[in-house]
């Protein structure tokens, strides 16, 4: 396939665009908004109306969460040990899953973007399958592969005494399975947008392909890698289906925030809302911290 073979357009435009955007106007993200307001006045109605409905549709549920939140009981709800246990586990496992995704996903993205081998298109489709797979199905598939009785898992158990289901490691693996494709897609898109001539120049100056990757390519695509990592981290933080199916649900060991929310919803909706608020606050905090790189993407 040629280097310009199909890459999800949004992804290619996203991280790469944000990278370019940042270079073009290093600190100007916030100051551009007034001009944006000027443009909005001229927005044609057929575009403006659906856009406003879209905004309402996305924000209304979040607003409802805030309106119906049990603000008075909130301090009690949030000081319970179980909430902090779940939050700690969520942050820990999502970060570990992101690290694992980076370690495996960046080389994988490089392989997909920079090398040519038969079946590469098919391989890309396969490794990004978890994007569209219902996470519960992913969890069942992980059980069949890595479970105590699974295709590979039975040997892990027999040879090394390692069992993955019902462990925190299992949570990390389930989250990685679901989140890594986001990183791969994002990094691959950035790699394709990056000019390969820099690497070629490095090669002509005697750098090995790995050195060129480490010293030239990686700094070049760093914004895309970061964007992908944030995306993967956010996806891992919200992961539910694969986690509960593969790793089960035990407080402090495998019960992450989404699992705690789901189970609380069954008999204590107020607690579920409180937990959701915490998760919402954490997500907003992370997005705000990365605002420069993320939200100002043109």
């Amino acid at each position, binding site marked *: 396939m040629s280097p310009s073979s199909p890459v999800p357009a949004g992804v290619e435009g996203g991280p790469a665009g944000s990278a370019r955007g940042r270079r073009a106007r290093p600190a100007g993200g916030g100051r551009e908004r007034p001009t944006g307001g000027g443009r909005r006045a001229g927005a044609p109605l057929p575009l403006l109306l659906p856009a406003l409905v879209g905004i309402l549709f996305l924000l209304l549920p979040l607003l409802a969460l805030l309106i119906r939140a049990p603000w008075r009981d909130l301090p009690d709800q949030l000081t319970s040990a179980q909430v902090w246990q779940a939050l700690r586990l969520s942050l820990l496992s999502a970060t570990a899953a992101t690290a694992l995704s980076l370690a495996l996903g960046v080389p994988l993205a490089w392989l997909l973007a920079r090398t040519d081998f038969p079946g590469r298109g098919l391989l890309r489709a396969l490794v990004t399958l978890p994007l569209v797979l*219902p996470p519960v199905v992913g969890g069942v598939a992980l059980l069949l592969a890595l479970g105590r009785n699974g295709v590979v898992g039975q040997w892990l158990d027999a040879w090394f005494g390692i069992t993955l*289901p019902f462990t925190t490691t299992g949570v990390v693996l389930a989250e990685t399975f679901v989140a890594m494709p986001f990183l791969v897609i994002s990094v691959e898109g950035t790699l394709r947008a990056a000019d390969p001539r820099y690497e070629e120049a490095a090669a002509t100056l005697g750098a090995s392909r790995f050195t060129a990757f480490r010293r030239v390519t990686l700094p070049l695509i760093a914004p895309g890698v970061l964007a992908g990592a944030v995306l993967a981290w956010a996806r891992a933080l919200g992961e539910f289906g694969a986690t509960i199916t593969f790793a089960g649900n035990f*407080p402090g060991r495998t019960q992450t925030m989404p699992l705690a929310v789901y189970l609380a919803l069954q008999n204590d909706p107020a607690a579920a809302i409180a937990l959701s608020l915490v998760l919402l606050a954490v997500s907003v905090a992370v997005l705000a911290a990365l605002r420069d790189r993320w939200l100002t993407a043109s």
Partner: protein
Amino acid sequence: MNRTSRRAPRRLLAGIGAAAVLLAAGACSSDGSDGSGDTRGSGGGASGRPTGTVTVFAAASLQESFTTLGKTFEKRYPGTKVAFNFGGSDSLAAGITGGAPADVFASASPRTMKTVTDAGDAAGTPATFVRNRLEIAALQGNPDHISSLKDLTRSGLKVVLCAETVPCGAATRTALEASGLKLTPVSYEQDVKSALTKVELKEADAAVVYRTDVKAAGGKVEGVEFPESAEAVNDYPIVRLKNAGNASGAKAFLALVNSAEGRKVLGAAGFLTP
């Protein structure tokens, strides 16, 4: 292996099915009232033949037996259709109090039924039509020689329980408290079927589930009865709902569930009939 590869899509289908039922229920509520109007018009009265679609919200553990009864119903009253929405009793109750159009509600616990009666959505008093007992689901052939609840506390044994927020988990806790045992599972599963699946897949050595689930699993798990389960028998109440679009159909369905034939089907699935 075969079992799970079927299970996952089935769960998907269940989700799609639930959505379809909701759609169908929305579409047929006018249908149903037309039907009852017809009955009244033709002077059929209370004994009039049920027509149209009967929408039944029922606990997930009733899936096998109610599906059978639904087919019997449709055969007995040609032209009728029974639309089921199987799910966790809590979410079904939440759907009904939230205005989901249903004719009959069969719940796995009096507590969830109470939320429906408290909201004034029930027509008449709920009646217990079956009971369910807990049973230990051990691996096929019972390689760990589990014969009592106490055996589950053995170290090195991987046991999964239902989360205490769902009826089977609450019942398990009652049984454990009655026996004074302390059992630390590897996981508190979100519903009884996923607890069972973990044993079917041999990921866990045992689970505490309902007798009916062990039955439904066929030979894939081995059921072990334990006396403490008598302390935590689950009553299943059923009731006709007030804003039922199809009152005659709902009455006829309740009559079938309580008939000798209904009891036979439910008994065969492992339920205890009161």
